[in-house]
């Protein structure tokens, strides 16, 4: 599939720089042209999709609340996010007098860059992407995704505000807790597909892993909601209750960077869910690129649907849910998947209904045992 000598002849650096950086079916086989095109393409593409996502969320959540949503700027209000961006850029950038200026300045950058980096390994089509076939792609995503925790804490600490610091500490606690079941859910996918490369994982999905590994899918989705700090896990920036959590002291363009990072995070998590569990670019009739984006918007639509529906959880429910409910169940899930792989490798199609039944039974049983003090239960 990949012709190493040809790439090495075109770009001698490529042979030692990365294992297989150039997609074979892309017209530019030139190493640097590939990086330039995909680097700029992804950076600007992400900004464009962020605008689309903001518009999509506002237009999609409106009918659920019997509203219309933005419809004044441009056709169907599609230029509303542009107007918002212009407004936010014209606002004054206030830095608190006693803030740690360097940290305060770096945090908004550091929250956006890892999200952008994660797009490098996403295959938008068969072999199309910056480095879609990176042999440690999933590890890269998990590792780079963890940097965001640091950025959140930097934002809270650098503001020199006790509320933002408390918000950041809660945020960090949540993100660290939810990274664990998230990684375990991903491990199940890796075990079935036998590869860490995102491209390879898509190729391995003859059946979407959402059906084959339903519990991993549910857990990954839940953890992605927590990582994104969206409903029902948005208690740290609960817009109707407290102000903003860790980015309370940010205004102007720096605040816009947090906003951007949040939505870019929504895109990347949707893209990861699509790649890992919904068989990526695969689909009938339509071109694969279109399929990828249809699935991307479908996953984000579900996230918005959750936001319109569910109340947010308390902090103790949040932590209890991660450690007492999802972590043990992920381990059980991993055990089941391992057993299935040992006995029926490659995985058989009839495991799909079996796994769905197992997931339903396990979730119901475990919820029965899962209790929190304070008189209320948390459920999946």
């Amino acid at each position, binding site marked *: 599939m990949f012709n190493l000598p040809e790439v090495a002849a075109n770009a001698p650096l490529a042979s030692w720089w990365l294992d297989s950086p150039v997609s074979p079916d892309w017209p530019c086989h030139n190493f640097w042209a590939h990086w330039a095109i995909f680097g700029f393409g992804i950076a600007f593409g992400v900004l464009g999709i962020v605008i689309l996502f903001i518009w999509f969320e506002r237009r999609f959540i409106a009918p659920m609340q*019997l509203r219309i949503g933005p419809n004044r700027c441009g056709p169907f209000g599609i230029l509303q996010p542009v107007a918002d961006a212009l407004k936010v850029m014209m606002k004054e950038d206030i830095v608190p007098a006693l803030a740690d200026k360097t940290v305060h300045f770096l945090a908004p950058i550091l929250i956006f860059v890892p999200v952008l980096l994660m797009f490098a390994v996403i295959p938008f089509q068969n072999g199309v992407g910056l480095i879609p076939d990176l042999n440690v792609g999933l590890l890269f995503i998990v590792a780079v995704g963890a940097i965001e925790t640091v950025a959140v804490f930097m934002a809270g600490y650098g503001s020199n505000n006790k509320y933002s610091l408390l918000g950041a500490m809660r945020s960090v606690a949540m993100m660290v807790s939810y990274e664990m079941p998230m990684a375990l859910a991903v491990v199940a996918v890796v075990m079935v597909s036998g590869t860490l490369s995102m491209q390879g994982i898509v190729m391995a999905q003859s059946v979407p892993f959402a059906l084959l590994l339903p519990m991993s899918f549910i857990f990954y989705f839940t953890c992605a909601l927590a990582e994104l700090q969206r409903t029902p896990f948005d208690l740290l920036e609960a817009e109707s209750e407290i102000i903003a959590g860790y980015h309370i002291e940010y205004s102007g363009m720096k605040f816009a960077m947090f906003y951007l990072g949040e939505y870019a995070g929504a895109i990347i998590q949707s893209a990861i869910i699509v790649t890992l569990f919904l068989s990526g670019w695969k689909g009938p009739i339509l071109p694969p690129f279109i399929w990828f984006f249809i699935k991307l918007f479908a996953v984000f639509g579900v996230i918005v649907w959750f936001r319109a529906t569910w109340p947010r959880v308390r902090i103790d429910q949040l932590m209890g849910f991660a450690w007492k409910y999802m972590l043990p169940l992920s381990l059980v899930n991993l055990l089941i998947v391992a057993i299935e792989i040992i006995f029926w490798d490659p995985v058989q199609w009839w495991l799909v209904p079996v796994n769905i039944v197992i997931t339903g039974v396990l979730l119901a049983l475990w919820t029965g045992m899962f209790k929190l003090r304070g008189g209320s239960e948390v459920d999946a």
Partner: protein
Amino acid sequence: MMLKPAGFGLMQGLLVVLKNMTRKRITEQYPEERLIVSRRTRAQELVWDRDRCTGCATCVKACPQGNIKIETSIGPNNKYVVEKFENDEGRCIFCGLCVEACPYEALFFGRSYERSQYQRKALVADIDEMTSPKKEKSAYYRPDLYDSLPEQTLLIYRKHKRIL
């Protein structure tokens, strides 16, 4: 129900929200579509009837703001002719006491709520403006007018023309 803790309540909630999407939207798209206000509305203007007014100045005495100015002269048949009748709508509190006080039912509330102006001076309604035929009379304290006015539209009963 035993399965309730397993997330069934959450799923029911999702379905409820999905059903909501099929309902009519209640947002009013203001400049394009306007609701008809209540027949007895106290809107932000006064309407004055020149023929009924005798220039008795009861409304001036009733006004808690001292806001209504009236100047009269003696005309034919020894009757008052109103020369100046002014109400500064920037100071008016729209309490309706003048309308209630008028013994000849010459003063009415208007029905228009779009009365904003760029200059304070423009808010002073003089005699020409208050008798302008464009102004609609409200049925506030004037029950005779009640049946002649259109029925109020409520958002829930509105025939919805969808503006997207």
